[in-house]
């Protein structure tokens, strides 16, 4: 059954994108703490791949944010 409220599909997409960003952020938090732990233990070789992975996660989150912005702009332009 379709939702009669205007813009509810856009909101569902926003919620999904925000959930994905939150999951990526949790992974990034774990990655930072694990990298810091390894660094303090003297294992310096993990710093470069961890930074690359963290950058990738940030890029994915940023792309999702741009998606959110696009939906936001589109939904607001459709509303009279």
């Amino acid at each position, binding site marked *: 059954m379709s939702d009669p409220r205007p813009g509810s599909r856009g909101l569902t997409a*926003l919620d999904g994108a925000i959930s994905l*960003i939150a999951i990526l952020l949790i992974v990034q938090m774990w*990655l930072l703490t694990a*990298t810091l732990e390894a660094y303090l*233990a*003297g294992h310096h070789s993990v*710093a470069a791949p*961890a930074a690359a992975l*963290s950058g990738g996660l940030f890029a994915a989150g*940023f792309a999702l944010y741009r998606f959110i912005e696009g939906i936001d702009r589109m939904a607001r332009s459709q509303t009279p």
Partner: protein
Amino acid sequence: MKLWREEFSIEAAHERYVARRQFGKFLVLTSLGMFVGNLWILLRSQFRKEEAFSRALVARTGDIPRGGVKLFTYPGPQDPCILFHTQAGRFVAYSQKCTHLSCAVIPAQDGQRIECPCHHGFFSIEDGRVLQGPPPRPLPRIVLDRQGEELWAIGIDLGTDPSSSPEKSS
């Protein structure tokens, strides 16, 4: 559209969109902070300086019986360390700060292990590795140089090189 029109909802129907977008922006900025943290660790790793440790006389071998210990500081006066003369006759020294929460480690009652009394972490007296409990890393080992009857501290090994020997003789 001007910036303030994007950041503040004028119509009630837009409010849910603006709130979600701003929350998404907060999450992404936090993600940027995590990335910067990883970059900071990377830069620290790339541009780290090898610490130059001074030589410091720790003890004379005859002063410590087998099974005995001696406390000393190295490399600075605020860095407590502990020297062990093991039952096997070897001299080994470690930082006295537990790698869990920096409590002072002490010899365990059995004389075979090093104990952190705060949270019951145990380390091997032979190489400082973690045997039990919450410590995440081995105890930093003080590199000793034995010259005749004298034991000198010449450096610190964080325990990342398993091939390094606990005590040098010359």
